[in-house]
């Protein structure tokens, strides 16, 4: 019974959080010193055009009324019109989001495949030099600004060694050759059976995904280590050893098995964090994703686009948080 209630409380918190998210973006949109009307019609528009646009946008109403209107528009998927691309922001986001999703997913793979073994290894060797070395690597990973890492990666692997192709999601030869179905280039290329395009996309994503993944690997490794240390100090680990199990079985089946669910929730939250890193990474690798859309809009003071993108990222955060919470409840026998 308690479990059902806890679950209900979690689910009930989602609309409240969403409401808060929308309220924040709404308020940010209203404190802008730039007049949204002038941003649309331009500085030199005649007085009556300005006045009419103001009415159209509902800016003559009170703030609460404007907020209700804003929520109503969002409910219909209407984020307003982007000044920069003159498309509806919703359309723009739908076009740019898959690229970010693809990059973040690839980066997450890098982060997990490197971070988890490193964390486990560091915990098993706690206090030895390997542990210290991994600690320094991780703290460096936390400390390096991702845009510097990205620039240096371009300098070394693209300009100097020429191992990686230049920035972009596709090289020029393959531009627009793959039918868009999911918007995820790797998936689309596979669906089309176009192996050359797939291979090209793999080469293009490798460097940005590695940069983004490495800078997030640190977090996963540190959390894995912390969880493992706690788990390894458990009495049940003594029991497992006393049974005569091999070191591998003790570490992986017993100690790691105990942290698996908690680790999964961390991984999901990392995924959310990757969206943030993606903004800076995309700018440098000319990756046509939400991050680049966001920074482009920022520089053009295109507030509808900025707030729309911010809201979508916030939404993704909420969904991923909820997912990690639900996973925890479903997978952990102690909570189940």
């Amino acid at each position: 019974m308690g479990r059902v209630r806890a679950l209900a409380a979690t689910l009930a918190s989602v609309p409240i959080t969403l409401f808060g998210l929308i309220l924040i973006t709404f308020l940010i949109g209203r404190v802008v010193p730039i007049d949204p009307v002038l941003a649309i019609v331009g500085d030199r528009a005649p007085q009556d055009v300005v006045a009419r646009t103001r009415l159209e946008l509902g800016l003559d109403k009170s703030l609460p009324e404007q907020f209700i209107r804003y929520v109503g528009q969002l409910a219909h998927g209407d984020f307003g019109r982007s000044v920069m691309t003159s498309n509806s922001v919703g359309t723009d986001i739908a076009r740019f989001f898959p690229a970010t999703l693809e990059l973040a997913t690839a980066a997450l793979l890098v982060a997990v495949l490197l971070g988890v073994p490193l964390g486990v290894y560091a915990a098993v060797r706690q206090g030895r030099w390997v542990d210290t070395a991994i600690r320094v690597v991780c703290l460096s990973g936390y400390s390096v600004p991702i845009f510097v890492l990205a620039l240096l990666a371009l300098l070394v692997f693209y300009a100097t060694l020429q191992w990686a192709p230049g920035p972009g999601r596709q090289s020029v030869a393959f531009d627009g050759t793959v039918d868009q179905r999911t918007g995820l280039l790797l998936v689309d290329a596979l669906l089309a059976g176009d192996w050359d395009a797939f291979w090209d996309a793999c080469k293009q994503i490798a460097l940005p995904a590695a940069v983004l993944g490495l800078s997030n690997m640190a977090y996963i490794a540190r959390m894995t280590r912390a969880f493992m240390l706690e788990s390894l100090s458990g009495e049940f680990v003594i029991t497992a050893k006393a049974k005569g199990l091999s070191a591998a079985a003790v570490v992986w089946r017993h100690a790691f098995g105990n942290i698996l669910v908690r680790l999964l929730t961390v991984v999901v939250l990392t995924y959310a964090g990757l969206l943030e890193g993606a903004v800076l990474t995309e700018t440098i690798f000319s990756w046509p994703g939400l991050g680049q859309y966001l920074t482009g809009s920022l520089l053009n003071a295109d507030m509808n686009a900025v707030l729309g993108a911010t809201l979508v990222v916030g939404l993704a955060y909420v969904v991923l948080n909820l997912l990690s919470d639900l996973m925890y409840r479903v997978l952990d026998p102690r909570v189940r």
Partner: protein
Amino acid sequence: MLVAISNLRIAFSTPNGWAEAVRGVSLTLGREKLGIVGESGSGKSLTARSLLRLLPGNARVQADRLAFDGIDVLTASEKQMRAIRGKRAGLILQDPKYSLNPVITAGDQVAEAWRAHKGGSKRAARQAAADLLAQVRIRDPARVANAYPHELSGGMGQRVMIAMMLAPDPELLIADEPTSALDATVQAEILRLMEDLVSRRGMGLLLISHDLPLVGHFCDRVAVMYAGRVVEELRAGELAHARHPYTRGLLDCLPRLSHPEARLPVMQRDPAWLRA
């Protein structure tokens, strides 16, 4: 002789140098029931765990002799140790709430112990686990086998623990305060079960406890530890003739129905016991 310990010293590295927790313990154990009694920090658990080499990494173990059935535990390879752990000597810990793996079902944990030493299929192991659970007098082995540890009571958990440690037919059972975390009514039941299984299989038992009368009741011999040393060793029947003031103190501060006392005596500790 199953166990031979001579001049065992265990120390831990601390910021202020080595702190000795066990300071020259000597014990022997055959196929008999030996109880080790002492207060928290007296080194009784460390002594027992050092026998299976299960001490934390920052512990330093030294001994003139630390042997299990003639195998030198100090120099044995990890592989040799694994052949002892579980297979030849089982270890039961204090609180099943912590000593059982919380995310694996009871049955799987018992089956794992069985399979680690006897091999065979998973099915066979699971069948064996159910049999073992029945042997420790669990009425509904099928249900308990599918339960997670947190779904079991303390007494039930400890039965699972016993079943798990008896799975590979060991020659020695080390029980480290096996009933301290249990309700008083369940304590006696679990101890009787353990004694029964140990006697029937002709195993050795090393029972660690802070409860002197209890140990005296279930064991053949009792070793009393204080501050990392064995201060007195005697037959269980001769507890009343204990000579060391610490042992006497432990016995004297128990309430008796036959001689009620308004105020129980408080033990006066003599610093000389530390040097003895």
